[in-house]
């Protein structure tokens, strides 16, 4: 009896200690699944048939975010480059049988981002307008880097106060009603900005109107549950550096099974264990009372 009370008090104390900050864990809506956003997600349509590889978007991005100007020489495009801690976006050049194709690479701003599901301090957040942004309460655990299907977040290993660097969809500009810097800067009309819905409609329009020009697929429409950046192309996507094996399930779904089992285990295991403990207690008492050695 005494033990039960102490354990109860111990649990109660822990519970109270958790409840205060834990209130942030409560869903703000009863049905947390279907979130009706007050805003629609914004999206960017990238038409790789229009991109000429001028890389003005790269300079505009660097300038808008106080990053060093990128190397604008043609030789820089000789290799396929990943984004870096000083380059949130860049253009890669691919040689295909339809000629040179230029593909702008940056954070895809997924509908259900793996990085946001991974972040245990909510440093990675999906904003209401669709932008996926990073904040400085980050711990630097780099789990977002492990979870991103596109390997986008980049970490400042060489700094004692490292940050995660990635495209923020110019979120600060979006809230002012402006377009992202790269979209604004593009002279070839390769980047179109609007709601994601509008972008998909526009992409479909182009594919239908200029039949045969484009591959009949919008990359990002369903990949990993849908992304904010959408691509259309004249050549198959795997030829221009896209992974086509990512599936249509959003990445947070893959952890869902485990996470949902946690409360169940925390409920079932103690009940089972205490049950066994009680049963063996009777057996133990019986054994001890019989006494004697074998």
């Amino acid at each position: 009896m005494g033990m039960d009370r102490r354990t109860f008090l111990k649990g109660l104390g822990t519970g109270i200690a958790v409840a205060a900050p834990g209130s942030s864990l409560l869903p703000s809506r009863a049905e947390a699944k279907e979130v009706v956003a007050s805003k629609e997600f914004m999206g960017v349509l990238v038409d790789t048939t229009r991109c000429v590889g001028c890389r003005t978007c790269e300079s505009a991005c660097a300038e808008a975010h106080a990053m060093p100007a990128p190397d604008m020489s043609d030789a820089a495009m000789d290799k396929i480059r990943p984004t870096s801690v000083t380059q949130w976006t860049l253009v890669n050049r691919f040689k295909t049988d339809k000629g040179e194709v230029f593909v702008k690479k940056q954070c895809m701003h997924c509908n259900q981002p793996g990085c946001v599901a991974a972040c245990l301090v909510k440093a990675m957040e999906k904003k209401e307008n669709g932008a996926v942004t990073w904040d400085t309460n980050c711990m630097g655990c780099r789990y977002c880097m492990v979870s991103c299907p596109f390997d986008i977040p980049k970490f400042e290993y060489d700094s004692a106060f490292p940050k995660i660097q990635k495209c923020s969809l110019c979120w600060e500009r979006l809230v002012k009603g402006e377009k992202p810097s790269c979209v604004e800067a593009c002279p070839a009309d390769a980047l179109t900005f609007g709601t994601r819905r509008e972008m998909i409609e526009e992409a479909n329009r182009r594919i239908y109107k200029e039949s045969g020009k484009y591959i009949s697929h919008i990359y990002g429409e369903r990949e990993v549950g849908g992304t904010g950046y959408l691509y259309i192309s004249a050549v198959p996507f795997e030829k221009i550096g896209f992974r086509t094996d990512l599936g249509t399930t959003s990445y947070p779904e893959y952890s869902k099974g485990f996470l949902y089992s946690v409360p169940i285990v925390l409920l079932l295991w103690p009940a089972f264990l205490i049950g066994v403990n009680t049963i063996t207690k009777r057996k133990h008492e019986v054994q001890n009372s019989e006494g004697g050695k074998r």
Partner: protein
Amino acid sequence: MEGFIYSDIFATKGVEYLLVISVLLLFIPFWRMVSRPAKAIYQATERIIPALSEWFHLPAEKLYYHQGHGWAMPESGNVVRVGMDEFAQKLVGKIDAIQFPQVGSKVTQGEKGWSLQAGSKSIDMLSPVGGEIIEINENLLKSPESIGKDPYGQSWLFRVQTPKVSANMKNLLSGALARKWMDGVRESLLSRMNYNLGAVSQDGGVLVDGIAKNLDSEKWDDIAREYFLVS
């Protein structure tokens, strides 16, 4: 979006079920085998404890066993013949001397009956019956080392007279109960066996006389006392 061809997402289910059933069937013998010592170990221990299987061939139906490893055989009249069982002798090994109770003295069932001398150690054993000592085995007194020859016959220890023969026998084990008890003793011995003993027995190495000494060369008398239920 691809996927306009039918793909069976449960294609492997049949094989999986078959696999699970086979694994479960395999698990049963696996569990049984891992839970107990291998046959070779049993056989090896039986070489060390030779008469393990012979205990089931109890020499006479009228033999009763005490849990301290003494035996009692009622004879005609109110006389009972008393001895120590083969296990006790094999456990202790070579006995240098036996301290018998005096003829005419009384022994009580379940209390000290006699004691064995081996080397510097002295180990008591409990008397399986209570009564008055009328005769002790003089041959055994003179040559105690011969006790191993015929523990249930020639190597009897002493004879007592008691009016309460059946009451005494009721407290002792015989027949199936005795066999069950011996099983328990054997299990307990097996669980004491460690690697060294197993290795020695497997290559037929030299065994020191007395099972207890093989289990623990220094504190073997404590082991013996544990089995003889004395302190």
